[in-house]
């Protein structure tokens, strides 16, 4: 069971999309798993032949549990799991043959942080991120008191959920968002910068561009914003990546997570991988695909864990400026408001221009306001030359 996010502890296997004997390639979708974030498609990172499905659909298993065996090329088939002997077969005494021991689940790494069972339980209830705590217990273990102290220090305590996540997926997602956002506001010293960008030139260019495109391939300005946000990160790379273990870890590649509101409530921000190197039409197609699949609850595991930065837009709802909250362990999020027509001074003349508010919330541990300002300036500059974003 892969981890589909740092806050995931278990997943329910909903459906197998392969069966024993199937040949799979790296990246193939093999199963659907239900998590707090909705139904997620699981890819295999191992090519080969499906040897055995270990976990039955409908079963919830902890992260790290072996859910299937895939045999690489040239590997011998694993011994078949013991099945009850049909009564018709001669009843030979089989007792002497040891049962194949179950695969060890989630082997604990030697470096695993020491957390007491009571602390782990309470951290789950309070939405406290254990990785950030310093233990005061025996051998430096994090104890219940450490967790409660951290929970009490949170400015906006996450309401403790009922003992167990219920079957209510929306409530589970709400809890997941609550945990991530509370952690963000508790731990990340946000700084906020905003600027108003003249989008007239970009929108004009888009109109022209769309006229020559087939209807199905027409571009929304949102794709332009995502592409520009990605390219600007190449100039200020300290906004692209993660804050882990008291240090900034640069993202490998620029994978913009596009925040998508779900109709039933909640949101997800799946990645458009390598946003900066994709053609604009490709970014649009990827975005469209993500929106559709997010709303039908069919996102892939890697899409949720890959983003190195997030872009959110609330312009559709008439919001002028967004003050977004960073999704940890990311270190930045870019927000866009709605496009509005405003009197604007251009070369000394007042004109009516279409402008948009672009804001940046960034982790002050990873970058400073000066770099954030440079980022917004780069974003503005890129949007003035939309043809370079194609």
């Amino acid at each position, binding site marked *: 069971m892969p981890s589909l996010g740092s806050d995931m502890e278990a997943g329910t296997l909903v459906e197998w999309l392969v069966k024993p004997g199937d040949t799979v390639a790296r990246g193939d979708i093999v199963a659907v798993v239900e998590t707090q974030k909705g139904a997620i498609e699981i890819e295999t990172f191992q090519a080969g032949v499906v040897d055995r499905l270990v976990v039955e659909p409908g079963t919830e298993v902890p992260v790290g549990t072996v859910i299937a065996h895939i045999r690489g090329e040239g590997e011998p088939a694993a011994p078949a799991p013991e099945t009850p002997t049909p009564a018709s077969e001669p009843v030979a005494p089989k007792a002497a043959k040891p049962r194949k021991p179950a695969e060890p689940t989630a082997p604990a790494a030697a470096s695993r942080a020491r957390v*007491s*069972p*009571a*602390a*782990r*339980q309470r951290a789950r209830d309070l939405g406290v991120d254990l990785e950030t705590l310093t*233990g*005061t*217990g*025996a*051998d*430096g*273990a994090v*104890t*219940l*008191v450490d967790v409660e102290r951290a929970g009490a220090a949170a400015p906006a305590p996450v309401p403790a959920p009922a003992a167990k996540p219920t079957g209510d997926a929306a409530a589970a997602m709400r809890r997941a968002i609550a945990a991530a956002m509370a952690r963000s506001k508790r731990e990340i010293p946000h700084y906020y910068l905003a600027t108003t960008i003249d989008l007239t030139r970009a929108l004009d260019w888009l109109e022209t561009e769309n006229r020559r495109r087939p209807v199905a391939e027409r571009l929304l300005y949102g794709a332009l914003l995502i592409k520009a946000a990605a390219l600007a990160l190449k100039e200020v790379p300290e906004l692209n990546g993660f804050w882990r273990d008291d240090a900034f870890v640069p993202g490998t590649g620029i994978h913009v997570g596009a925040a998508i509101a779900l109709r039933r409530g909640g949101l997800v921000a799946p990645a458009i991988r390598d946003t900066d190197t994709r053609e604009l039409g490709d970014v649009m197609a990827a975005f469209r695909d993500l929106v559709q699949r997010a709303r039908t609850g069919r996102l892939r595991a890697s899409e949720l864990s890959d983003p190195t930065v997030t872009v959110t837009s609330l312009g559709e709802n008439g919001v002028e400026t967004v003050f977004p909250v960073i999704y940890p362990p990311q270190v930045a999020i870019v927000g866009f408001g709605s496009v509005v027509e405003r009197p604007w001074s251009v070369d000394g003349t007042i004109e009516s221009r279409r402008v948009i508010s672009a804001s940046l919330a960034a982790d002050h541990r990873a970058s400073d306001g000066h770099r954030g300002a440079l980022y917004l300036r780069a974003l503005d500059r890129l949007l003035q030359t939309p043809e370079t974003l194609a």
Partner: protein
Amino acid sequence: MTAQTANGGTIALTYREAVRAALREALEADPRVFLMGEDVGRYGGCYAVSTGLLAEFGPERIRDTPLSESSFVGAGIGAALGGMRPIVEIMTVNFSLLAIDQIVNNAATIRHMSGGQFSIPLVIRMATGGGRQLAAQHSHSLEGWYAHIPGIRVVTPATLEDARGMLASALACPDPVLIFENALLYNDKGEIPADAGAVDIDRAAIRRPGRDVSLITYGGSLGKTLAAAESLAGQGVDAEVVDLRTLRPLDDATILGSVRRTRRAVIVDEGWRSVGIAAEIMARIMEQAFYDLDAPVARVCSEEVPIPYAKHLEDAALPQTDKIIRAVEHLMGNHG
């Protein structure tokens, strides 16, 4: 009871005198009750527990036996089967090994083997424990062995009230009850209510309430553990002390209730570390209170050597107050 003096509703006495008072009361209350064992009559008991009882109750009811544990324990089983209420004193747990066949194969099984037709209302008292420089063969703490056996009850009075009150409940029990009296306790002095009587023999007791760690112990280790708790209080660690009182059946409710409150536990057991009663208690905590724990459960037991004769080595081999304190300090990490 020459040593006792009435004092505002309480009486002052020793553990030895408390046991003797219980014996006397039982002998007076029920003509079926009799005491037998090595030197219990003329000599007054190896630990002077039964001093005076022969004169008071006569040789029919206070019976000196040959040095043959298997035979007199077997006789006790037979007497119980025949409707008597025998109290058999085995001088020490060390010699009970000669009677272990009678205890394990007969006393513990007859109710089961007879389909419930016969029960064995037998009480066996014996001294246990080390710490008196009696060397390896006379310093065993094997009560944990007996606690392994279904069909018998094992109780370990550690206080004057329990020394006074457990015998009556043991006699009332239809099954064999083994009472382990730690020999170091016989001279303990204190006051108990003048009207102290029977106490239950199936519940553990919290001897000192606390919030930070549960110290779970019994018998001869209770005093050391309470002393450790007092010392820890000076360091700001509020230890709860649980006296098991009975090793079979174990009172899971009290043990786990305490551990769930404090989230930490140290078991103090004079038995050897491996495969002992401490291990059983730790396993139950792991099984039933794992998610309440804030630290690995720890134990302070006897070192795995035959108990030495030399004083400094014997002290080093047995659980001691400073060892208990160190174990707690480690569990508390920087919380203390």
